[in-house]
């Protein structure tokens, strides 16, 4: 019996050993054979020395979430060898460094072992000690390629893609891969059941991209011209990608002038301050950060809300509280971001789940931010931001920017009067002018202190309350403008609500629930404030499971607080929060258990 195109390969290595390139080449080569892949890098907060794991999930269905089951282990980290081997499922494969002793937990009789003298092979073929570790990693790619059936042509193409700017590296690395293949062919007797076979129709027109690159492209195409940031994992690569794209596509070849100002700020307070200074002056601006940075931005977020300043803030979430696990993923900033700052503050929060959404909803975030003259928070996470995902090519934008209600000099000349915070249309959204507008009425004073509709300082109780009410009205207006939920409703009794990367576990989880005899409907929230569809969905279902990656069930809490009180009893919370991306089992097991104990 053979298992075709349905397995998870785990490479357990030491951080800083250069295994990332090998893992990416392996992923890419399998993808080039038309087989759906879902790589997950589970890495430490460390540059060199701590253990790191890279899982490549291969599934005919194209599931993109993490798999709990490890089929094939490449064990190249003596420190974790004793924990890694027991994680392999029965019938699985362990490819390991020959010199490791097999005893205790590492000696099993339900897995296939392939011992490979990686260190010896590398030593024999590479004189340079520094290069040797890289070479070792490519050897395991070769061993795997032989055992599983990865095509040489696909590997070469993947190497060329990986080392675009270093053609020499392609040959060196291919030599290492061949060495692994040849060693395996001559020395290993294949007794396991796993194979990879080229297929068609599964990955046509798809490509591999990470969410941070996609969001950066959303910034480019969304017209962002000012970015300020402070380095923090896992958001750094978002701004670094934006820099790379602006260098490449926004720079005048002759003059060297670049149509973007991107500043590495001294901290996140300064970063968000620069964003608001820039948007106040009329540019589109963004900052990207993660939890600790978001905490520092709280005061300015309130200014942005109350003084009504656009600005896009990316929070690529990692595991908090505090420093937490900087290189692990959670969705635990939702409630904090939604109400970031003191006082009655409510923000627009965008919740992308896919690479395509990281791009498209970023462009939309800039439009919403200008339209509503308010900070918009894009909550991605480490899993979406830093891992590679299969996606269709990102679509070229067909719509122009929506810059919202901005009065220029001509509009001011035509107007009899205007007030910066006056609600003219009843939607709560006032008009603004930009510095530099050449009209005597254009200027006004932006302040975080109490102000009337003409932006004058005011401590009047009615004026203060009316302004807060208008801001609430504006937030309500946003409900029909924000990205609406994606709903799959076939009239079943049980519903699921999720958001962000939890989506991918829900997709697989619903298939498994169906196999177990439970049909479900599904609503995926893509933004806060909540939209009318959410209320209707909960109303239509007997029970609704709210699934998310945080301890406290933060979306569950928001739904209970904001939906009509009589619906609260229908909501049940399912949570996953150990820092590794949620898998389908974390959806299915608690859900079935609740169904069995509570409702049957």
């Amino acid at each position, binding site marked *: 019996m053979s298992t075709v195109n349905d397995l998870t390969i785990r490479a357990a290595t030491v951080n800083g050993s250069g295994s990332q390139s090998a893992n990416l080449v392996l992923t890419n080569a399998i993808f080039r054979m038309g087989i759906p892949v879902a790589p997950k890098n589970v890495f430490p907060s460390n540059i060199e020395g701590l253990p790191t794991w890279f899982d490549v999930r291969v599934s005919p269905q194209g599931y993109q979430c993490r798999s709990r089951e490890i089929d094939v282990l490449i064990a190249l980290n003596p420190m974790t060898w004793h924990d890694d081997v027991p994680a392999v499922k029965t019938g699985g494969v362990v490819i390991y460094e020959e010199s490791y002793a097999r005893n205790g937990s590492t000696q099993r009789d339900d897995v296939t072992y392939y011992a490979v003298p990686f260190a010896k092979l590398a030593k024999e073929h590479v004189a340079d000690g520094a290069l040797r570790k890289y070479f070792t990693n490519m050897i395991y790619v070769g061993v795997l390629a032989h055992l599983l059936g990865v095509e040489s042509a696909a590997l070469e193409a993947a190497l060329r893609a990986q080392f675009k700017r270093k053609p020499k590296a392609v040959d060196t690395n291919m030599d290492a891969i061949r060495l692994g293949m040849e060693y395996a062919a001559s020395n290993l007797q294949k007794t396991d059941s796993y194979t990879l076979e080229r297929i068609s129709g599964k990955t046509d027109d798809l490509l591999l991209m990470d969410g941070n690159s996609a969001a950066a492209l959303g910034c480019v195409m969304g017209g962002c011209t000012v970015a300020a940031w402070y380095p923090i994992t896992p958001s750094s690569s978002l701004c670094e990608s934006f820099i790379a794209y602006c260098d490449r596509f926004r720079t005048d070849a002759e003059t060297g002038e670049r149509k973007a100002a991107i500043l590495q700020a001294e901290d996140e307070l300064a970063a968000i301050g620069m964003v608001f200074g820039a*948007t106040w002056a009329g540019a589109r601006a963004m900052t990207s950060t993660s939890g600790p940075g978001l905490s520092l931005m709280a005061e300015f977020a309130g200014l942005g809300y109350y003084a009504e300043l656009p600005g896009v803030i990316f929070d690529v979430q990692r595991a908090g509280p505090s420093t937490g696990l900087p290189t692990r993923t959670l969705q635990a900033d939702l409630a904090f971001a939604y109400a970031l700052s003191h006082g009655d503050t409510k923000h627009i929060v965008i919740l992308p789940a896919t690479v395509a959404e990281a791009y498209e909803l970023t462009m939309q975030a800039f439009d919403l931010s200008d339209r509503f003259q308010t900070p918009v928070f894009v909550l991605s996470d480490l899993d979406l931001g830093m891992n590679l995902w299969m996606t269709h090519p990102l679509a070229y934008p067909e719509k122009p920017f929506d810059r919202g209600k901005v009065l220029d000099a001509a509009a001011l000349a035509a107007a009899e009067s205007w007030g910066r915070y006056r609600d003219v249309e009843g939607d709560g959204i006032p008009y603004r002018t930009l510095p530099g507008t050449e009209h005597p009425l254009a200027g006004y004073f932006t302040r975080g202190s109490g102000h009337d509709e003409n932006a004058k300082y005011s401590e009047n109780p009615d004026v203060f309350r009316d302004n807060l009410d208008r801001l609430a009205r504006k937030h309500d207006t946003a409900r029909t403008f924000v990205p609406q939920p994606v709903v799959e409703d076939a009239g079943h009794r049980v519903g699921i609500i999720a958001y962000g990367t939890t989506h991918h576990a829900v997709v697989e989880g619903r298939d498994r629930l169906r196999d177990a005899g439970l049909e479900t409907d599904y609503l995926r929230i893509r933004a806060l404030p909540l939209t009318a569809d959410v209320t209707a969905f909960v109303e239509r279902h007997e029970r609704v499971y709210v699934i998310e990656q945080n301890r406290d069930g933060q979306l569950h809490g928001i739904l209970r607080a904001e939906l009509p009180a009589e619906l609260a009893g229908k909501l049940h919370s399912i949570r996953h929060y150990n820092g590794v991306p949620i898998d389908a089992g974390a959806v299915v097991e608690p859900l079935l258990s609740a169904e069995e104990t509570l409702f049957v």
Partner: protein
Amino acid sequence: MNANVNAIGLSRDVYKGAATTLCAGCGHNSITNNLIKALYDYGVDPYKLAKMSGIGCSSKTPAYFVDRAHGFNGVHGRMPSLATGAKLANRELMVLGISGDGDTASIGLGQYCHMMRRNVDCTYIIEDNGCYGLTKGQFSATADRGSVLKKGQVNEFETIDVCGLAVELGATFVARSFSGDGKQLIPLLQAAFSHKGIAVLDVISPCVTFNDHEGSTKSYNYIKEHHAVLHTADFIMGSAEITVDYEPGTCTEIEFDNGNRVLLRKLEHEYDPTNRIEALRTMHEARDRGELVTGLLYVDTHARDLCDRERLPQTPLAHLREDDLRLSREQWSSLMESFA
């Protein structure tokens, strides 16, 4: 030329703002009046002026001049980041930041330092009274060691010299003046407007309510007795003729990028404001003597400002549209192919 308008045809009234809500006799009001005169005489375009501030008594003052300009009263100690963002977005704006000693040297010290080293093209006025006015008179970080509060507390901590710090951190125009000395302050302000880069003016400005008593080193009386003027300053707009008389060899002329000049006439000692080491020495020695040394302490007219260092186009970023900013369809297709 009409005697009642300035070079760009605007009357003095245009440069006024709302009535002050600060205490009668506050040094900040004198600064505002001097600023109005400086802006009017200079012929600053109100539509291009961006008035930025943080929080505190000082930071209220942008409401008191040039009503028709856009103003931004941000959060405490964070004016530098707002000003930096505004300048990056629209480099045509003349950014004028007004801060206080608490706003700059206590809560805002980090942003202040980084603004100095970035050389943001911005005039940065510190209305410096050594105390917190709005919260009723606590010490700020510019209070001199040994200075006494109204209720008798003595400041045991070393003062932060915002000018010394600015020079140390690469600021390219650093001056100190006194709110009551319009004759010196106005030409220094106009020189600051002319400077392309960060121009810091630390203006000692007594707090009449909380820090104008015996024992305070920021009181009117103390300043009167300890004011040491480095040089007199005269500002000359563009190619205007020099009308002031001076003896040859007594005058240093600084010419700015835009052709405007400031003439510094030496008083008791020679002083070279382009010498960073001398600037630092002068400030340290004055502090040791308990003196308030005023004048243009340091200037470097050759350094590139932030917008130039960032290679920004002359067209303000805020004015760029879809066609300027998006990739073409062809570029986009080939970029997408590169991911496959």
